[in-house]
């Protein structure tokens, strides 16, 4: 729950400015980017996601090292990614 998962912003959802589709390790899901409204991410940029919300923008290097770290964590990361894959935010 407290793990921040890096995701790459793919696109914004039409009609829903707070929602964006992101790619997390090949899993594409919709997240809320409303908490970054002061400085919204653009497609191709990376964000750190907590429970369906992007909490901070990060650069690609940080995203790569955060992902490597998470994969090393093992079960907790697998559980979080499985939960994300189940998520259907609208």
């Amino acid at each position, binding site marked *: *729950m*407290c*793990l*921040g998962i890096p995701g790459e912003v793919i696109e914004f959802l039409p009609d829903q400015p707070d929602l964006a589709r992101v790619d997390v390790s090949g899993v594409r899901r919709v*997240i*809320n980017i*409303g*908490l*970054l*409204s*002061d400085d919204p991410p653009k497609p191709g940029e990376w964000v*750190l996601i*907590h*429970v*369906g*919300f992007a*909490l*901070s923008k*990060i*650069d690609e290097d*940080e995203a790569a*090292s*955060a992902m*490597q*770290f998470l994969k*090393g*964590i093992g*079960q*907790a990361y697998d*559980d979080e990614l499985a*939960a*994300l894959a*189940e*998520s*259907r*935010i*609208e």
Partner: protein
Amino acid sequence: MRFVDEFRDADTAHALSAKITALCEPGRQYKLMEVCGGHTHTIYKHGLEDYLPEQITLVHGPGCPVCVIPMGRVDDAMALASEPDVIMTSFGDMMRVPGSNGSFFDAKAHGTDIRMVYSPLDSLKIARKNPDKRVVFMAIGFETTAPSTAMTVLRAAAEGLTNFSIFCNHVTIVPAIKAILDSPDLRLDGFLGPGHVSTVIGCRPYEFIARDYGKPVVVAGFEPLDILQSIYMLMVQLSEGRAEIENQYARVVPWNGNTVALKAIGQTMELRPYFEWRGLGFISHSALKVRDDYAAFDAERLFSVPGVRVADPKACQCGEVLKGVLKPWECKVFGTACTPETPIGTCMVSPEGACAAYYNYGRLTRHRVKEASGT
């Protein structure tokens, strides 16, 4: 010593280890608390204590959101879930936390409608799809997750949803740190500040720790080298007699936090006069409740919540572990009656809990090495 090979920059780690050792004053013992359960996880996973000289002890703090929920709140949640037409939703971490009469998983197995969700926004979707049901989201976590709950309440209000509410158990980290500083049980020399919480609250809320208590704080990232680097930064401050707030994780944590997130929390929630923490007892102004303006989304006002205080199981010493007074393996039931499969205490449930982290990575720490070799 397999951990040496396990992370990419073992050479850098050893170099940092040597620099940290060089900063230790002869004869002085250092106790540094990592506040965040994510840090505890990294420390055990990578055996980081083995990189530190004997003089430095890492003390595990209360920053595991599942671990600090007292049993009475679990029982309250269970009572809410048993109300007619209620669907309770919860993060996966919470599902195995034992209440007096079992966990959410146990209740679910007996037919109570409790559903695991990844995001509070998933709960909102369940509410939309089930207009004849009342959906209650078990809101837990520090400032990392509170903005998500706040944004979800704002969204529910904007949509005019009438069958969604939250059972608010959000806690705030700073009062817990203050309670530990004020506790006579433990004398600490410095803190590794929590990474993700600080993304939201920034670094300023820790300033009192340096100003009023004379202890340094370094906000730390989650990778093994982040933690060693942060320990080094703390040791530099201690060796120079400084006490300041420093940000090792500046690549993610802005000094002033996330103002949008803070505003969303402030709009929907306010501080409770007090809240019970497992192990730490009642702490003033240490948790959040729903503001009057959003009372329609507050499960504590929509339902009758028993609010009973339940003592933790006698055998369980999570309280001492959360305060950093006991190491996980010093608990009487650690690894015997209490395991991740059959947890008695919360510290064994969450992957961020010190007991689960230690159990899962069961490493030969230097203490154990010493015991094993009889030295």
